């Protein structure tokens, strides 16, 4: 591996001279492959459902025809809901409410004027006299619904950020009820509770072609979004919002884009539904339909597009059976009293309860059709395992700029223990700002600007004060870490070490004093912006994206810092290699043991190539041997990316082994600062921290 890397690096030198062509080619090919796999999955799903439907419908009867069309339309709605619920993890009851908006708008616009005058003759806004073709009406209805969704979405996405997903869910429920109340009471335009709005007989949807188109479109959008950058980031937020934010992800835009696509699809499904049935009334888009679609989604598995389709088919079959069983033609003998109309609703409710208790992630959890072992071979499924040739060739295209070159020597020896300490690594070069997507170095100017002691290469906290409920946690704390050095932060429990990390990363606001990165104040920057300017961290208690793979965990952090997707993947491969998790790259993070999880968190923090890496108790819960091996890995990573490191830990041996300088904090203030030996023998440190 080592020789290969060095060889590739030489190649990379050649590549640098002609960067644009090969890099872009590489990028394009990767994109096509990835998208190809997802589209193939969507196409397969589409094919299977269509084929099944054709066979079912050919069995005869208009009833079967209608049932299958309904199934397709419900699938559009459910897949649409999956885009939001699956990717953001926020439960929404409101999608059917958005469907009501679309359905009514569509009906009001599409029904011809003369027929409409009988139903809602005095509709306001000129709606009474407007009649446009079905397609135009559909487009207008979807557009209107999206406008409504933007406004409501601001509340949903932001409340999720501030108060947890539950608040967002309750707001969606309010949306559903608001839509219903308005549909019932604003009779001028909705026709009220009784009649609603219906199409002139004979003008309702004929045939299934529109449903097919819509279904295909839904699968396409859902599959594309799932593998898109925004989709990945949305899922990272779903897994652990704090960790995602401190990796540089701002949740709102990703949740919003998921919501928009999702509502768009639901609106399309709702229009088709209205068109197929030929009428719209408040009850059609209320709790019953919400329950139906949500059950479909959770039965199949909300995290997977395939699951949404499977759930739709399964639940449709279930409702069909209960409908027949509770109908007049079915004689159940003694059970007839049980099998009454309404059975379907109870069964849906029980199905939902059963799944929530026994299998809350549904049949498929997050497995997609392309994850089936048979299909995997045919599709180019992004295989997370680093492959000897391709991963290293990726890393040439990917590894960012000057740092990788300057570290060439260090990193080739990085799998061996590095004996030297910070003095060697401090030769690392600073990198261009990570938020700029730069694959190639910006030139010698950057190289020249580096001096480890200079203000512009420091992360500083200056006289910071923080107080929680009257408890002084930090008082005039002052600390300064320079790029290229490894700095320790020790102190008794409650001294404020973690709080200081929280202050530097923006989790906790300073009450007075200031924080600076490279001389610029960063107090006003939100957590995700600080991450993007180059401050990454790990957490005292593990905060991994447990349902994502090891590879995804690392790649997402890189993506969030602003680099392209494939570069992120190559960085992820590189980092995973450094922490020796290569063989587990495609495992879910939740399946790792404790030690591996700690290392993965380290790799995730480093994947954004931060200027400063803040590690909160990297050895807590480790045995001595494990501590020793993490020393090597932290060194190797710091050397590879040339960052400064701030380590909080209690293990003095570990601190002594890794740090160039040490701060000791007690009761919120720095009581000692200097080399390890100096701090270790400082009387204040001994009495406050080390003891006899």
């Amino acid at each position, binding site marked *: 591996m080592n020789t290969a890397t060095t060889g590739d690096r030489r190649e990379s030198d050649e590549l640098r001279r002609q960067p644009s062509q090969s890099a872009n080619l590489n990028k394009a090919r990767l994109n096509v492959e990835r998208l190809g796999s997802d589209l193939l999955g969507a196409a397969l799903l589409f094919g299977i459902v269509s084929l099944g439907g054709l066979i079912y419908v050919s069995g005869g009867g208009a009833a079967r025809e209608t049932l299958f069309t309904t199934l397709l339309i419900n699938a559009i709605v459910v897949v649409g809901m999956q885009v939001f619920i699956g990717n953001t993890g926020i439960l929404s009851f409101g999608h059917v409410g958005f469907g009501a908006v679309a359905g009514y708008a569509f009906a009001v616009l599409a029904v011809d004027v003369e027929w409409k005058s009988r139903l809602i003759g005095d509709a306001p806004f000129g709606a009474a006299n407007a009649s446009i073709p079905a397609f135009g009406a559909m487009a207008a209805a979807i557009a209107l619904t999206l406008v409504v969704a933007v406004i409501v979405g601001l509340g949903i996405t932001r409340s999720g950020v501030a108060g947890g997903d539950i608040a967002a869910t309750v707001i969606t429920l309010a949306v559903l009820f608001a839509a219903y109340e308005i549909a019932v009471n604003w009779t001028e335009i909705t026709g009220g509770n009784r009649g609603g709005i219906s199409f002139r007989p004979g003008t309702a949807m004929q045939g299934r072609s529109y449903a097919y188109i819509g279904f295909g479109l839904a699968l396409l959008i859902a599959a594309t979004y799932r593998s898109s950058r925004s989709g990945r980031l949305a899922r990272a937020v779903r897994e652990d919002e704090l960790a995602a934010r401190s990796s540089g992800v701002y949740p709102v835009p990703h949740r919003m884009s998921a919501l928009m696509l999702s509502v768009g699809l639901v609106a399309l499904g709702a229009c088709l539904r209205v068109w197929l049935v030929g009428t719209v009334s408040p009850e059609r888009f209320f709790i019953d339909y919400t329950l139906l679609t949500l059950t479909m989604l959770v039965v199949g598995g909300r995290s997977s597009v395939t699951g949404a389709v499977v759930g739709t088919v399964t639940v449709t079959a279930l409702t069909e059976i209960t409908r027949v069983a509770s109908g007049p033609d079915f004689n159940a003998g003694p059970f007839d009293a049980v099998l009454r109309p309404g059975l379907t*609703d109870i069964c849906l409710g029980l199905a939902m309860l059963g799944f929530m208790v026994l299998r809350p992630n549904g049949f498929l959890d997050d497995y997609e059709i392309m994850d089936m072992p048979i299909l995997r071979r045919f599709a180019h499924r992004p295989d997370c395992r680093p492959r000897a040739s391709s991963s290293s060739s990726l890393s040439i295209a990917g590894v960012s700029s000057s740092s990788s070159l300057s570290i060439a020597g260090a990193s080739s020896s990085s799998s061996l223990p590095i004996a030297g300490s910070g003095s060697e690594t401090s030769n690392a070069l600073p990198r261009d700002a990570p938020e700029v997507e730069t694959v190639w170095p910006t030139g010698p100017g950057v190289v020249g600007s580096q001096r480890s002691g200079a203000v512009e290469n420091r992360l500083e906290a200056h006289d910071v004060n923080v107080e929680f409920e009257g408890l002084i946690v930090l008082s005039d704390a002052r600390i300064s870490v320079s790029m290229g050095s490894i700095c320790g932060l020790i102190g008794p429990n409650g001294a404020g070490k973690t709080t200081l990390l929280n202050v530097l990363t923006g989790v906790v606001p300073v009450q007075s004093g200031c924080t600076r990165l490279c001389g610029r104040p960063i107090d006003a920057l939100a957590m995700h912006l600080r991450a993007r300017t180059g401050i990454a961290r790990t957490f005292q208690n593990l905060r991994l994206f447990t349902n994502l793979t090891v590879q995804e965990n690392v790649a997402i952090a890189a993506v969030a810092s602003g680099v392209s997707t494939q570069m992120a993947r190559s960085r992820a491969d590189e980092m995973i290699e450094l922490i020796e998790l290569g063989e587990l790259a495609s495992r879910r993070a939740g399946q790792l043991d404790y030690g591996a999880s700690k290392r993965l968190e380290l790799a995730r923090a480093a994947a954004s190539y931060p200027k400063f890496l803040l590690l909160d108790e990297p050895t807590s819960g480790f045995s001595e041997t494990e501590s020793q091996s993490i020393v090597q890995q932290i060194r190797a990573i710091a050397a590879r990316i040339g960052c400064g490191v701030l380590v909080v830990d209690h293990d003095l041996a570990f601190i002594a082994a890794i740090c160039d300088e040490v701060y000791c904090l007690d009761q919120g203030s720095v009581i000692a600062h200097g080399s390890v030996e100096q701090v270790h023998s400082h009387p204040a440190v001994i009495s406050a921290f080390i003891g006899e």
Partner: protein
Amino acid sequence: MGHAFTRSGPLAVTEIIQQFVDGLGRGGEYALIALGVGLIFGVMRLVNFAHGELITVSAYAAYGLAISQMSWWVLAPAIILTAIITSVAIEFIAFRWVRSSSDFAMLLTSFGVHFVVQAAFVMYVSASARHFSRPEWITTTVSISGIRFEVVDLSIIAATVVSLGFTVWVLQRTVYGMSIRAAAEDFDTARLLGISSERVIRAAFALAGLLAGIAALFFLMRTGRAAPSAGLVPMLKGVLAALIGGLGRLQGAVLGGLLLGMAEILLVSYLPDSIDGMVNGVIFILVAILFVFRPSGIFSPRPSQRV
């Protein structure tokens, strides 16, 4: 526009006070429901959409007793008792299985319970509403310096104050309340300390049931109506009130309920007649918009999470 602007100045002041009291009465009901919702949320992070079913079931119990000519002196304790029993039963049948599940699973479980109960009433009792007689004194008013108070409003306000005080006292001062909070925070640790968490959580549901029962009592006195969906809108308003006040904060839940009631009374009097029926719709929209500006409710929860 509504009638308010046709009055003269001094009368308008009494009008405002009048509406304030009306709003408090209406809001008190929501506050009681929100208090129960908030309590259950605090105990197991569950937003109980089935909380409205306590009202529904109580309503049918009241209907059953009312048609056999029972007086409200019998009905009142029966209603409250039914709510308590239903609350505990729902926990026993459904919620205890998802106690340590994700928020997502719990939300859908409570939604599912709501649905199954409602569908069962539709299937096996009646899809349409049943009516029963309301107590005579329900429309009685007392007049103090030109302002007329409905007795029922005053009793609701009093009941809310007493209930809130009682709940806070139980939770903060008694060891039993501490146990509820302990089990709420960490189920396993509570068991390690010797707390029978099962029993404690069941007790919390009983307390929430008591609060819902009191709300149901006043609600049924006002409406005299039992229907499968009777509890739906009160539940939603209670949940929204709890959310406005900041989920899991009991004082917030009460304030949220009062605000909601106040807003509703004001909308009833000032909305244009043409969209008079849309009070609920407008309320829901206003709440949704409120969250654009105050994403975590008016009284945002304090950050207690350690990083």
